């Protein structure tokens, strides 16, 4: 998966969200439509145009105290309305390791 650290231009090809890591503990978080953050992908604000993505990212980056490294990530919106990660990298961030923890949680 191409690292979003190399994300140069903001141009989205489908439904997307803004994701980051929470500053105090590094946990994966998603920007919500209420200008806050949630640890649940299902609570994320969905953007469908590049302009909306830019605006959501700008608003997210402005919260430098709460979140680190915000970027735009693709998602899939399923027929039942469920939001699913758009690639393996985001699936791992959202759902956890594919290997199981060395020490079971």
């Amino acid at each position, binding site marked *: 998966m191409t690292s979003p650290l190399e994300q140069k231009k903001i141009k989205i090809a489908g439904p997307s969200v803004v994701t980051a*890591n929470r*500053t105090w*503990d590094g946990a994966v978080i998603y920007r919500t439509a209420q200008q806050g953050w949630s640890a649940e992908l299902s609570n994320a604000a969905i953007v469908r145009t590049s302009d909306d993505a830019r605006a959501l990212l700008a608003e997210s980056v402005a919260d430098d105290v709460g979140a*680190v*490294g915000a970027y735009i990530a693709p998602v899939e919106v399923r027929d039942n309305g469920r939001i699913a990660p758009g690639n393996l990298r985001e699936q*791992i961030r959202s759902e956890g390791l*594919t*290997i199981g*923890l060395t020490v079971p949680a």
Partner: protein
Amino acid sequence: MYAYDELDRTLLNERVSEFRDQVKRRLSGELTEDEFKMLRLQNGVYLQLHAYMFRVAIPYGTLSSKQLRRLAHVARRYDRGYGHFTTRQNIQYNWIKLAELPDALADLAEVGIHAMQTSGNNMRNVTSDQWAGVAPGEIEDPRIWSEILRQHTTLHPEFSFLPRKFKIAITASEHDRAAIKVHDIGLKLIKSAEGETGFEVLVGGGLGRTPFIAKTIKPFVHGRDILSYVEAILRVYNQYGRRDNIYKARIKILVHELGIEKFAREVEEEWQQMRDSALTLDAAVVEEIRSRFSYPAYEKLPHMPDQLKKAAHDPLFERWRRNSVFPHKVQGYSIVTVSLKPVGGPPGDATADQMDALADLADRYSFGEIRVGHEQNLALPHVAKRDLPVLWKALDRIGLATPNVNLVSDIIACPGLDYCSLANARSIPIAQELTRRFANHDTANLIGRLHINISGCINACGHHHVGHIGILGVEKNGEEFYQITIGGRADENAQMGTLIGPAVPYAEVADVIEDIVEAYLALRDSEGELFVDTVKRLGVEPFKERVYATR
């Protein structure tokens, strides 16, 4: 073990206080992430996919049992109960909270452990042979020189903002277990014709996007001059190394672009101006450092004790002994490699409980000392041969007696896409599947020494270029693919592996590796010909044909 003094302890405590204040200011918003990033990196704190990752240095791979227990404590108290030993004698914690990091650092500082310069564009952890001080035939203990270099380069202002990270490895044995030829500077301790201790100095090695084997820049530098000579290299690098392009910033690129002869002339010119300066190592200084390393009071023991003769009748013990037990410089003792590569497990991971239990075993059977090797295994460096049978059983009870050291399932792997923000593809599940495919110990022994290295991206933390079989994860149209190289090696005959053909998808990697191994078994000229020697003799073509003929 090296005994730290009051100066060392003060330095660590001040560093913890400084970082505690920096974290506090970051969490309050007084520092932005842009301002804070470099500060956290200088303390070994990265941001990965799921959380912060905390990298702790284990200088020259030597740990006391007390230190290992403290590493276990950090895993249990601040992380999720385990740690990951890396290819550069560090341990990484994957789930640490920024808010708790200062407390974790303070706990580590109490036992003389820190995370300084485990990240950032500075001098990284100076690594060495994990058998240092106990390997037969060693020129002398390379950790003395590692410690001198560590002290000199830690927080050295001139080397805190290098063009890029900088790694030094030191060995004192003919057989290179420290991979010095793939380091920015590789140092090999040697004796001159006059019997004086010095170093063959190599420079410009490295893996990553543009791999190079290090070249000898000076065949002999006297021990008293090693600080000034290393500093001369760093000064030339600091002056000419590129800061405009991160991909061309390592010293290997500078050495390659200038050519080793011109680079050597630049270094020589610099060195001549400073070699007889305050950097000249007085013999008393070296002796002072040497005196702070303590060595066990070995007993006079028989070469073949009765306990070992008796245990030799147990095939399970013998299988473990053959792969895990190595000669020691003192009669009656052995070096025991502790495999962190259980079948189906993530390579290099150890649980807090395993670390605690191993610390207890080190106290009982290894004079309280543990070593960490770049192959992501641990070692007990001073085990009396009479204790091997009972140690084996104890290791087996805690899951640390997998008899696969140096065999096909002793895989080196980076964390890959399961953890790492730079990765393109997963490494650990590939390693896990391969360990299952080669779980049969008889088959693994039949195959013999074979090193598989896996990296999840071109940054090559799994050292895939120098694996006998190297596996590199890449991305193609959003899918994980893997390039396979064969014939690499990281020892004194280090060389890069050769790509055998197009990348294969995730689901086929284990099948491809099995095909390569089967081809080797059919092609080798005898049971004694190692995989890497068969590749050298025949080239990659027969392996390529086997892999791609039906794909």
